[in-house]
Structures are given as structure tokens and as C-alpha cells.
């Protein structure tokens, strides 16, 4: 059973704001999804390696060689607010 509180909690973790009717609707949807997962869990998977990646590739590396970075101006280009070369954000420790 997925409660509306569960939905609200998951939404808050992802910073999503939901209206009341959306919460109701989503709790039913999530219920179906979780049920489906349960169905999958009933399969015998003891001898199957977990898939951590869908591509059959491994060991993609980069050499430890420096390439130019963005300028400070470029880096801050998308910031909503900036100050003294830094991104300016609401205060996080009072």
C-alpha cells in the first residue's frame, strides 16, 4: 500500500511540488509499479549477475592530462545570482 504520505515524501526528496489530486493519482500509479516489481521479484535470479550497466563495455578511461577549464565568467554564465566570482545561493547554515 503506497500512502499519500509516501508520495509526498518521495516528491519532497526530488523537490517536486504536487497538488492534492496529483498525490491521489500518483499513489495509485506507484502502487501498480511496486506491484509489478513484486512480480519481477518472484523470478528465479539467484544465478544471474546483476546488470549494473546496459552496455557490454568496460574500462573506459581517460589519461590524467589537464585540459583548459571554463573561464570564471563562462562558469557563472548560467547562475541566477553571483557575487565575488561565486555562485550566490540562499544561506544554508543559520
Amino acid at each position, binding site marked *: 500500500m503506497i500512502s499519500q504520505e509516501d508520495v509526498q515524501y518521495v516528491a519532497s526528496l526530488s523537490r517536486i511540488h504536487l497538488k492534492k489530486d496529483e498525490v491521489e493519482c500518483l499513489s495509485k500509479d506507484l502502487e501498480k509499479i511496486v506491484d509489478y516489481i513484486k512480480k519481477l521479484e518472484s523470478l528465479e535470479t539467484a544465478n544471474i549477475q546483476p546488470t549494473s550497466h546496459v552496455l557490454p563495455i568496460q574500462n573506459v578511461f581517460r*589519461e*590524467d592530462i589537464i585540459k583548459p577549464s571554463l573561464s570564471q565568467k563562462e562558469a557563472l554564465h548560467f547562475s541566477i545570482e553571483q557575487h565575488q566570482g561565486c555562485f550566490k545561493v540562499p544561506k544554508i547554515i543559520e
Partner: protein
Amino acid sequence: METTQQFETVIGLEVHLQLKTKTKIFCSCANDFGGEPNTRTCPVCLGLPGTLPVFNKQVLDYGIKIGLALNCAINNVIKFDRKNYYYPDLPKAYQISQFDLPIAKDGFLLVPSLNNELKKIRIHRAHLEEDAGKLMHDAVHPYSLVDYNRTGTPLMEIVSSPDMHSPQDAYDYLQTLKLTLQYLDVSDCDMEKGSLRCDANVSIRPKGETKLGTKTELKNMNSFKAVKAALEYEIARQTSVMLSGDKIIQETRLWDENKQMTFSMRSKEEAHDYRYFPEPDLVPFTISDEKIQSIKKMIPELPIDKYHRFIEHYHLSDYDARLLIQDAPLADFFEICAKNFHDTKKICNWLNTQVLQELNERKAPISKTLLTPDNLIMLIQKTDAGIISNLAAKDVLKIIFETGKQTEQIIEEQGLAQISDDVTLEKIADDLIRENQKVIEQIKNGEQKALGFLIGQAMKKMNGKANPKKIGDILQRRIFHG
């Protein structure tokens, strides 16, 4: 004190180590310290949409090296996972870390403690991850500032098992761990610059209890001393909470260096729910046994092994061995000296006092100074033979550090050789005996101090160049036998 004896302390430490690669872990921005804010970022470490991380080969090698040095098993298959949380120092709103397949696990570190015993502290796991950006705020302004230069700096997180039972244990572990990591040459290990950071988990439980008590996590300690002090404070706090019948609350507490106390980090701490899942932007990595073996060969003799070897092979005291291994280049220097000079104790006496003092003043490793093993041995031999006084030898050492000149040359140029010739010294002795009849009486009455005074006077007369042993002998002979 009696009440606190009812409880046992349990401590586990998490050490975050910045690896000194040239570039960041998943992009080609320079991995450096300081500089103008936001000048070492790119679309990857800023977390801009459509970018992909690519793993730095060197980080893997360093990770394996650290894991092996900590006696860990290296996983043959590793992968990265996303640790999700919102915080302004994390531009992607997730940190790329390792969850269930860390690079290293199940190791241990042997830690020499004060009473000469070796404590085995288990390493639970060690994994690779990216560092977050730097947040700055002050008491005055209603905002925080973010510098993303540090974002993406390669980190190795080393998690100990809860095997420590006192703040001193934790301190000793950190010292040994830091020294081991310094020998590996994989990090600056500089707490002031934040390249080595430590969080501590601490709980107490009634003696004899096997279940762990509720822990608190301590953060914000800027030195090993601060870690020790924070733990001491926290243990006392938890003890008084328990004794008053209250419960310990599981929480993160910050150490306040000025107030010397921990306080609860109530503010924005919501229940941690990181929702780890495999990082889809990075493929898994396999580590072959050949690779592990080849890195194993690159690990130098570690401090604990050097410590044992120095005691066994050179018969050094625990104190001397312990001090020497703190500085790998100094330990190497000692070994070269020991090859050419039998008296290892004397070499240590010089290295662990005056030489160390000079190195500290110069903030340089001995290999970067002008002192050579040959020159030091010459200095010791000249002092031993009474050619120069101990005091003059210290001056010679200083001049060697400054100029790199040969010991013999310095002694000659500075006129530091002691006067040992009998005629001169006998005359001085005569003069002194004549001028100091009162003192002579005291010496005859068995006052050794008075003889010391006379020797001092002789040194003064000869500008510190008299051989003090010889003049002492002459004075004694003259006074007692005429």
C-alpha cells in the same frame, strides 16, 4: 571519574583523502588547491545537462595502491553509484560515489600506541568518489557563496571498523594512517588545506555490553588534536546524558574549535535517504590480478615495517625509530649514515635534534638541503675526537645547511678547532688557579660545580675554543696533585 568507568567508548573514523592527481576524477580540469573561485570548472564538473563523466586512470591506480597498503582485498569488479541529495555544493544534486562494489574492503592498519603495543584497527572499506564544491558563509550576510573549483576532486574515503576505544586510539590511528598515506605519495595529506579530512562516529555503552550504543557523528575538526578534543568532549557529554537517564540522540554534531565543544547540526538535516543506484553514465571497471600485482610492486616499505627493521637491524630505541620514520627522507638519510658510521645512537641524536630543528625551520625535506651524510659523519667524528666542542659543532651544522661547505673547511675558516695543546692549556690552568683561590678550596671540599665554574672561565679566556675535557683534567690534576 569513577562514574565514567562504567562505560566503554566505541569509535569509528571516516577519513576523506584528496588524491594528488593532475586532473579531477571525471573531467580534465586541473586538480589544484586555492586560486580564484570558479576558474577550474567545466560542463562536466558543473553538472550541465548532456555531459558525460570519464574516469581518470590515475585515480584507479592510486586507489588500488592505498587499498593494498591498508591490507585490503581489492575488488576485481568495481562500479560507481549515485548518492542523491540536494545541497548547493553539489551541482548535479548527486555525488558519484561507490556503494556496494567499493574498490577495497576488509583491511587493517597496525597502529603503534604509547605503551609500545601494536593495535590492529580494521579497515571496513575504502571507496572512490568525487569531492563537492566549497561553501562559504559568514555571520553577517543572508546568503552563501559557492566555489566549484573543488568539485570533482578525486577522493578516497577510508572507513575504519569501530575498533577504537579512546580519543588517544583515534589519534594514534590517524597519525599512522597519515604517515602510511604519505609514504605512498598519493596525497598531500594536509588537514589545513582539507586534503585530509576526518569525521568521527562515537558511542558509549555499559562495560560488558556487546551491542553498540546510539552514535553521534562528529564533523568539522581541522586537526588531529581537534579530533581528539572533540571526542573527549563528546564522550563526556554522552556519559552525562546516560547518567541522567536520558537517551542519546543519533545526530551529526559540529565541533566548535573556539568554544571547544560540539553542537547539534539541527539546521537543514533531513533524514538521509540517498537512494543509491548504479551510475548509468559510467561503465563498470575490471581490475586484473596482474594490475594489482604490478601496483603492489610500487608500494615502498611502509612506516610500520621500517620501524621494526630500524629497531632490529640498527638497535635503535623505540623513541628514535618512531621519530625517524615520521620523515621518510630523513630515515633514508639515516641509513646512508649508518652504512659508514657504526654509532647509530649518535647519528640519531644529531638527526632527531639539531638536524630536525633545521629542517623544521626550513620547512624542507633533508633531501632538498645541502647537508650530506658524509658531512654529518665528519661533524660527528670531529666532535667525538674533541677537535671541536659540542657548541661549535652546532654552529658548523648551521653553516653546512647555509653553504654546503665541508665540515673541515668550516672548522678551519671559522677558527672553531678547540685548543688541546698542553702548553697553552697548562698556562691557562695556572692563571685560573692563582686567580680563584676561593673556588679551589671549594673544589678541594668536593664541590664538583665549582670545577665546572673554572672550566667555564677557561672557555671564556679562550673564546670558547678550549677543549673542556682536557682543561678539566689538567685543572683537577693541578689542584689535587700540585
